[in-house]
């Protein structure tokens, strides 16, 4: 069954439709990619699905429940987690602490217990730490655990965000350009990581500009241009779609493609 259903989602900024009537579905363990040129509305779409923007139209169903406009922390409780295109790491916390913060839902407890350092509080912290260390290992940052997060490279921070998002044990994971700023090796690692996570049954919604990666790992691709869905389908279909090529490379490219063909 479909874990995430997006229907007719739309929003306006300053009278302009930033996203208009976009819909798609995401099944369990599936990787769906949203692609499109810069400014096509991909991140805006993400922000609506993850509860940061309130959509003007349409609805979002998570696991059969209407979660449209629900706050991000309540979505997190329901198993939806995400990363950000413009990094949103917790500055002045260590790498380990960043991931431990991702275990908030399991680790949270009464403030008094936390202030007094009661055994329960310490146990919750220990569990979060153990979980966080495993995740750091998984994204290859175990050696950086005690460093200030701000001191990491861009690519490492991208992986840190993924680890933090995974700490929630999400059913649906939204990744906004996870490979941006990464070199080829790092990209490949992230590529493997995403595939492995999906293989565990987590559904992944991906925005990514590295087309090689998108084409390689997506089950399904949704193409946005100018805020609207212009095409969708499997990678092969989408990459042959004339409107997609035009949107990406310019209308003239279609002629070039024809000339090639």
């Amino acid at each position, binding site marked *: 069954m479909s874990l995430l259903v997006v229907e007719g989602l739309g929003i306006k900024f300053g009278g302009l439709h930033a996203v208009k009537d976009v819909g798609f579905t995401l099944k369990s363990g599936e990787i769906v990619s949203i692609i499109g040129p810069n400014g096509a509305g991909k991140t805006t779409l993400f922000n609506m699905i993850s509860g940061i923007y309130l959509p003007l139209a349409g609805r979002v169903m998570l696991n059969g429940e209407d979660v449209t406009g629900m706050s991000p922390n309540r979505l997190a409780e329901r198993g939806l987690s995400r990363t950000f295109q413009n990094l949103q*790491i917790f500055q002045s916390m260590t790498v380990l602490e960043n991931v431990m913060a991702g275990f908030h839902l399991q680790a949270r407890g009464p403030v008094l217990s936390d*202030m007094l350092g009661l055994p329960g509080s310490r146990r919750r912290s220990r569990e979060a730490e153990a979980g966080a260390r495993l995740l750091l290992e998984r994204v290859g940052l175990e050696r950086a655990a005690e460093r200030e997060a701000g001191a990491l490279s861009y690519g490492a921070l991208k992986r840190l965000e993924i680890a933090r998002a995974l700490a929630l044990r999400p059913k649906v994971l939204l990744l906004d350009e996870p490979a941006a700023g990464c070199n080829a090796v790092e990209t490949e690692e992230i590529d493997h990581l995403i595939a492995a996570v999906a293989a565990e049954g987590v559904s992944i919604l991906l925005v990514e500009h590295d087309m090689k990666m998108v084409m390689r790992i997506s089950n399904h691709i949704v193409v946005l241009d100018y805020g609207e869905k212009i095409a969708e389908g499997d990678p092969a279909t989408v990459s042959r779609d004339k409107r997609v090529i035009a949107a990406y490379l310019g209308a003239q490219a279609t002629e070039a493609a024809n000339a090639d063909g």
Partner: protein
Amino acid sequence: MKLSAKQASLLVLAVLIVLSPFFFPSGYYFRVGSLLFVNGLAVVGIVILTGFAGQISLGHAGFVGIGAYACALAPAYLGLHPALSAVLGAVVSGATAYLVGRPILRLKGYYLAVASLGFGILVSMVLANEARWTGGPDGIKTPDLGLRGLLADMGLELTNPQFWYALSGLALLIGAWLALNLRDSPTGRALRALHGSEVAARTVGIDVAQAKLMAFVVSAVYASASGSLLALQNRFITPDVAGYMHSIELVTMAVLGGAGSVLGAIFGAGILTLLPQALTVFQNYEQIMLGLVMMLVMVFMRQGLLPSVLGLMRGRGE
């Protein structure tokens, strides 16, 4: 054995508190020390609110005022023991913070600053205007805590400044211990996370509004406890403790020393408590120096004095 940062901080603090008196030439130094600890306690509350959760309050002296006046009014009108009055003050402060915090913590930056400022001014205004109850701007007497007498009966004779040095030193140690526990607990991480990025904090499941409110309430209780200690120690209290200048002073202490670190903020409280005492030789130039120190530290050491100095030392070490 390797000490954790928390243990090291507490150890440094405890050693300073216990060993300093051996170098005191007179009882006056106990008084200054106890003032430092009382300020430090309120400042640790600011660390939780501003350093951890990243929220500004220019009205925290309002809670200091509530804690202080509880110790004057509850014994007089309710017949409560001064110690219980301090607890009552903390409860009232916490409850007030809960009610006030809900609406004002929705605001950000300068708007939060002006709203909290307004709250502080309201409190000090009520304390000054309701003279029938509060004694008005000229202040009101507070009863003796009685603990010093009790200790004397048990054979532990302390002068008044010594007694308050010990009691407020103990209070500060406990306050710092609680704050350091909080820092490295799930709740503390949630606070520091929302400071780093509110959006990301929400996406990991942190109820940001709730967390901010909690930090506000806890820091209000710290401020209240600081006010109670001050009132009981001075045996007399005026609405000045709740005034705008005191709020500013507390925030300045925290930020100057390093709001992100408990020890740094206490260090800041120390500097701003000692500086006026040291500057009395300069008489008229005291304000000029104080203003200069505030500007220079903030312009050149954004993290605050202690973290910047430690950073420099570490930088040299590498």
